[in-house]
């Protein structure tokens, strides 16, 4: 049985649930809508299953406005990029549209060879009481493929809450339903790595060098079958995100798979992640990992040297959510940069503790800052750079502050040792551009 909303909000492994202000709860009326809804969160987790079809049972806007907005890459199948929606009209809403949904599922099965079909309910279809679970069940029996209901209508909660709901769907309907073709002693699953800009591939390449096989990524560049057979892995590694902790804990309870929480962002973090994973997988891997770390670091340090000279002492405001904050602080300090203010909006007490260990005493911790506040701070603190998510890109640029995007729209992969070089190059390219003085100067006639 799927966990109820109350159960998810009490997820024992989630530290947020011990606090008053929970990340999984909705924003206030009058807010600026920077946070997505539960439907958004569910899509973030499930759409990177690239050989599946994702059918959104809704009027046009739900998926029309969100289609193609995330840079989760695929190494092969492309079906996940196709946008399927029942595109409800007023009549469909008045008279009900379960029949339309059923026909839509059949149309997809007949024309697109999906490995599975995920069917998403949304606010409107939940409100008019469409029984998508029953429709999916009937369709599954008739068509002989997995047709999976995802009941995460937007108003159910925040984006994070939607992540959790999607995690429940995977636990309930997908994970453990297929036996893998092959297994090794060194199989691990990555959880919460969506392969934005190809970041997963950097990690997989690195782990492969150490003899570790990523058997499934839940979910990034993922085949349905991979996820379905991920229950035989030796270890689950949550990458830089606690949103899917229910999957990690669920798989521990159900299949006895231990889990770790690691980050592949920055040199120190990547090395630590490798060590911790190796510790769980046995001595052979540990020896290889020790060599690998030394080798990779030696190469990288040489490549990074010129950038480090130029980036040293750059003053940064970091404004991003949750776990990402400490892992990026660590990466920035690897380059000798200085974080002068840091957002803690989605961070747990544990995250904040880790952040404080990495930061100087003067660093400001920002709870929840609007764009106005960020710009004011940047001026007061004489920041050289803002590192933040896409929602703050124009906040920074219009204030004429150099900006680096580290969220879903980023263009380059920054994970692992090789990603660190991209990270340094991108930072330096923006900071070194003469554009900053050009846009600040007065015109000659003034």
């Amino acid at each position, binding site marked *: 049985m799927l966990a109820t909303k109350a159960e998810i909000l009490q997820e024992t492994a989630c530290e947020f649930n011990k606090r008053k202000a929970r990340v999984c709860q909705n*924003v*206030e*009326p*009058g*807010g*600026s*809508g*920077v*946070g*997505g*809804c*539960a439907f*958004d969160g569910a899509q973030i987790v499930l759409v990177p299953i690239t050989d599946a079809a994702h*059918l959104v049972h*809704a*009027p*046009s*806007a*739900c998926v*029309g*406005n*969100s*289609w*193609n*907005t995330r840079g989760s890459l695929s190494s092969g199948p*492309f079906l996940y990029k*196709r*946008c*399927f*929606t*029942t*595109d*409800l*009209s*007023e009549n*469909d*809403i008045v008279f009900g549209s379960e029949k*339309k949904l059923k026909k*839509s599922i059949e*149309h*997809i099965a007949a024309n697109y060879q999906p490995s599975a079909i995920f069917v998403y309910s949304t*606010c*409107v279809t*939940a*409100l*008019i009481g469409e029984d998508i679970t029953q429709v999916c069940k009937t369709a599954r029996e008739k068509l002989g493929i997995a047709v999976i209901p995802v009941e995460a*209508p*937007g*108003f*159910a909660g925040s*984006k994070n809450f939607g992540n959790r709901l999607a995690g429940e769907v995977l636990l309930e309907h997908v994970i453990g339903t297929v036996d893998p073709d092959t297994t090794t002693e060194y199989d691990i699953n990555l959880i919460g790595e969506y392969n934005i800009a190809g970041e997963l591939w950097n990690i997989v390449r690195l782990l492969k060098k150490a003899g570790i096989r990523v058997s499934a990524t839940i979910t990034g560049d993922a085949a349905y079958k991979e996820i379905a057979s991920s229950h035989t892995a030796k270890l689950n590694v949550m990458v830089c995100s606690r949103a899917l902790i229910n999957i990690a804990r669920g798989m521990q309870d159900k299949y006895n798979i231990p889990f770790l929480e690691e980050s592949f962002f920055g040199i120190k973090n990547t090395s630590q992640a490798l060590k911790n994973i190796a510790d769980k997988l046995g001595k052979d891997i540990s020896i290889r990992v020790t060599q690998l770390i030394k080798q990779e670091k030696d190469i990288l340090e040489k490549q990074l040297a010129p950038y480090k000279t130029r980036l040293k002492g750059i003053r940064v405001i970091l404004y991003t959510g949750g776990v990402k904050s400490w892992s990026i602080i660590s990466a920035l300090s690897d380059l000798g940069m200085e974080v002068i203010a840091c957002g803690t909006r989605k961070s747990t007490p544990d995250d904040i503790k880790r952040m404080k260990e990495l930061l100087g005493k003067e660093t400001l911790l920002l709870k929840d800052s*609007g*764009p106005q506040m960020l*710009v004011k701070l940047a001026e007061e603190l004489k920041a050289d750079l803002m590192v933040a998510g896409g*929602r703050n*890109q*124009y*906040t920074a640029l*219009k204030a004429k502050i150099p900006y680096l995007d580290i969220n879903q729209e980023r263009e380059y992969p920054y994970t692992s040792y090789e990603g660190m070089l991209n990270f340094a190059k991108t930072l330096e390219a923006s900071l070194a551009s003469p554009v900053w003085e050009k*846009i600040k100067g007065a015109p000659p006639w003034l």
Partner: protein
Amino acid sequence: MVITTNKKPLAVNPLKNSQPLGAAIAFLGIDKAVPMLHGCQGCTAFAKSLLERHFREPVYLKTTAITEVEAIMGGGESITKGINKVLDQTHPDLIGLITTGLTGVKGDEFHGVLANFRQISSAFKDMLIVPVSAPDYAGCLQEGYALAVSSLVAELVSRTPDRDHKQITLLPGSFLKPADIWELKETALAFGLKTLVLPDISGSLDGHLAEEQVFIAQGGIKLTDIPKTARSAAVLSFGESMRNAGLLMREKTGISHRHFDSLFGLFGYDLYLSVLSEISAQPIPDKYRRERKQLQDAMLDCHFYISKRKFALALEPDLLWNFHKLLSEIGGDISLMLSPLETDLLKSSSELKVLIGDLDDLESMEKTGAELVISNSNAVYAAERLNIPLMRAGFPITDRLGVNQRTSVGYRGSMNTLFEISNYFLSNHHARSRNDENSLCH
């Protein structure tokens, strides 16, 4: 016109954009206005993100963030709370309150809630809140935009004895980009006519680096100027979807109304200039006489590449009509017109075939033999599969820079568009001489 609708039970790669998006764009063309979407937080987050990706500008939207319980019981309280918070934080001149599919379903009585709110919160009695019902299960972007403009006219414009014969009111449709509106304003100015543009995204979403940063729609028509639109010598509406707003303006103010379905191509701008000349009693300025000759010359140069070529157009109705006019003027063969919505104008012409459908239908159109697709960025997959180039137009355009800064209207705009189209075939010509078939694409 022969109109057919695809037979699928669902939309695959939809061409349609939703009404609330259009309504939000309209409010963003008013200085210090805040569009607030009455729905779940995600409705706003998605819309904001998409608008920012298209315009490459900061877009400030607010949400009423209704919850599951409110969705069932009615969302009046969240509107009240939301408005109070917005007033408190951003001090806007106007709030555009837009329904989404979610609240449309509930039939939340917008006006009732607002009247109630105005009573309770006497401090904000004079605060302007313009409600628009633009649910996403009906219409498309251009319709939502037009509904918002009609609401603005209904709420803010009334008859006045004052007349300014040197001023005209423009009601541009959503198919016009910021640069297009600039062109319309500049042209009017050349006849000595001031313009009031409702709404005016050329002031707010044109991409300019201001000295000071504000966190609200900046630029666009000023709230205090909106009632002054009633003093104009005439009101001009552009795009079929804006005809009703124009008619409403005429009905409410008594000023004369001229409507333009098309601004693209020679004929489209001839008509605009003639009307401006008539209103201002001024001759056509030399600049435009010259530009007209330039366009004619360009049409000659371009007809080699465009005449009898086959085009597939997949756009919202107003823009679809404009491209149809432009291409038809030099003999382009429009083998497919794909629209998300049927309109009277599309039905009016007997020789055209229009398909109401999605971008998936575009992919199955191999038999039409189209050599260039004109559509939004989402058509890139269809174009790739068809192995023909895509010229980006419409909304959203997320994979090209400078789109909103480029004029498509006016003689110059049409000239540049024709050159751009021809160049797709010209480079193809070059590729063929190198026997390199792959470079046909992009």
